[in-house]
């Protein structure tokens, strides 16, 4: 653990060195988790496969670390990074991906439907744009109950072309809800280049036209992400309404595990990986500024590896849920026989 103090040194205002260590550790954990899970998916261990978020770690951790634990994050189909950043236990997440009884949701959710409300993850979501709607509602609930909770709703560049997203943005704007609208623009929706299907100059400009302060943020720089989200959260808590943040980021892997990629060049991927990798950049920042030592980096990597290995063992060994429970807990409304049908 480093001894210099980033807070005093002003490296990242408002964050202690210990916190900066944790930020990096979270990013590395996500990286290792996703690399591992992707491999497991390719080997058929994850029913239905998954959407890896490798390359997008800074967005998730930068957001989560700028929030309070009781703040809400609602994710997308590509959201393991959000779940882990919100401190869901990697073992329980992986077990959920496997469909095991010990998963975060007992195997009922799966990769696209992870949730832990106590930890503020209000669901990752299989429907493009839908997570933002849940966050919108969470912000409305906070506003009606007069708490000072903030909600973050995530969606991608592809989601920016769904109508629902703009209904959500408008409602948040006119009601000045404590919402952060967070677009992870990773340039592609499945195989479709965002620029080929997205009219206008930028997604952020659309949001501005709906009356919400909006900006683009370098999503590969966790310090920038954190700064933007913290400012937005402060505005929200002060009653000054929602903010739109468009994070420019990149997914290194295909849309889903095993996807054959022909819609972008290897060059493009290499460019992002080598010059803008969020883990590398933040590692370099912290070591160059003396916040972390090379040994810290090693320890972080080792810890991540150990945690993920343990998660794999846990997921592999965990029991399957009981099939006879499959139709339970659909609704508390029941008819005279007590059956919900």
């Amino acid at each position, binding site marked *: 653990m480093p001894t210099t103090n980033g807070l005093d040194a002003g490296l990242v205002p408002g964050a202690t060195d210990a916190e900066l260590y944790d930020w990096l550790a979270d990013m590395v954990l996500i990286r290792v988790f996703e690399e591992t899970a992707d491999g497991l998916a390719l080997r058929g261990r994850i029913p239905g496969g998954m959407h890896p978020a490798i390359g997008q770690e800074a967005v998730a951790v930068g957001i989560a670390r700028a929030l309070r634990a009781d703040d809400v994050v609602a994710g997308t189909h590509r959201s393991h990074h959000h779940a882990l950043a919100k401190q869901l236990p990697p073992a329980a997440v992986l077990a959920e991906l496997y469909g095991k009884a010990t998963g975060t949701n*007992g195997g009922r959710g799966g990769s696209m439907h992870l949730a832990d409300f106590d930890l503020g993850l209000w*669901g990752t979501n*299989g429907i493009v744009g839908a997570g933002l709607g849940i966050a*919108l509602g969470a912000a409305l609930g906070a506003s009606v109950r007069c708490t000072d909770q903030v909600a973050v709703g995530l969606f991608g560049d592809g989601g920016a072309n769904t109508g629902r997203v703009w209904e959500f943005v408008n409602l948040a704007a006119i009601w000045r809800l404590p919402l952060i609208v967070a677009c992870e623009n990773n340039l592609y929706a499945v195989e479709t280049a965002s620029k080929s299907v997205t009219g206008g100059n930028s997604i952020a400009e659309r949001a501005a036209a709906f009356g919400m302060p909006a900006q683009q943020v370098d999503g590969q720089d966790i310090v920038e992400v954190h700064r933007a989200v913290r400012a937005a959260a402060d505005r929200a808590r002060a009653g000054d309404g929602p903010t739109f943040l468009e994070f420019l980021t990149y997914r290194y892997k295909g849309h889903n595990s095993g996807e054959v990629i022909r819609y972008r060049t290897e060059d493009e991927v290499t460019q992002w990986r080598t010059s803008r990798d969020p883990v590398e950049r933040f590692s370099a920042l912290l070591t160059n500024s003396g916040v972390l030592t090379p040994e810290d980096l090693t320890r972080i990597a080792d810890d991540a590896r150990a945690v993920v290995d343990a998660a794999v063992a846990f997921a592999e060994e965990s029991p399957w849920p009981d099939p006879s429970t499959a139709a339970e807990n659909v609704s508390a409304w029941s008819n*005279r026989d007590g059956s919900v049908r």
Partner: protein
Amino acid sequence: MSSATEPRPKAVATYSTAFQEGMREEMDRDPTVFVLGTDIYDRGGHFSQVKGLGERFGHERIRDTPISEAAMVASGVGAALNGTRPVVDLNFLDFAFGAMDELVNQAAKIRYMWGRPVPLVVRATAGVAQGGAQHNNSLQAWLMNTPGLAVVFPSRPWDVKGLIKSALRGSDPVVFMMHKLLTGARGPVGGPDELVPIGSARIARPGSDVTVITYGYGVVVADDAATALAGEGIQVEVIDLRTLAPLDVTTLVEAVKRTGRALVLDEAPALSGPAAEIATTLSDHAFWYLDQPVVRLTAAHSPIPHSPPLVDGLLPNVGQVIDAVRRLALARGPSQSSVS
């Protein structure tokens, strides 16, 4: 049915003011209940269903929205998860098309996927009346076929008030349909704590010869037919389902075991409509008690036209109910046409 809580002569309201009353009492009781919808604060909704509540509860709790059905339901879902009890007023049920993912893929599934209740009420004016094809969709079967949703469709003020109260004290999503043609119907209503349980049908009219199973405006049609048939000595039992999901199987089955003859009356389109479920439920549970096949009397499988005579031409009417019940009451064994 819940004959124990049947109306005693009490406060009288309309179908619409019964909703207002139920809402007002529940909003007084529970500060987390609020309403959102278009034109509700001042106008009180297009059917006056929340008239007067704006002034009483203010803009925070009677919230006017833009025309954004997806955002309305989504914000209701998220707010319900965050410690409040939203009532999303969709105005016409037809506008739910714009919020189907929010209703079906989110609200209805969250308890199942994530173990969290979503205490959301979606209120909508429903049923067939004037307004043409796009404002007269009968989505009852769709919503019944959606695991995770309760679907209520009361026929009289007492049940409107009692059911909205139950909905607002429960924990899971309820779609609350109110029939256009019943808006001004008058009748007694219960007190602040007289609830009508969701999932309970009622015997609207006792009778021993033929059971007519229906809901919403169908109860009025069935009752008129029953009155006429009583003059011919045919005693018709009318069951008002009140709740379409979950179905009160026990009440239906017990009734049909008594009469052995049943007609399901429904104004939804025929193919795969609610009437099919009800008929099949009877076959599942009371096949050997059926003296005759269950008769479905539904709307034609058609969109709803604008012109009143065309609307009438599509919908089952009192005369058709009378004819069908009479045939059913008098039938003995297979008729020639039905076995040919």
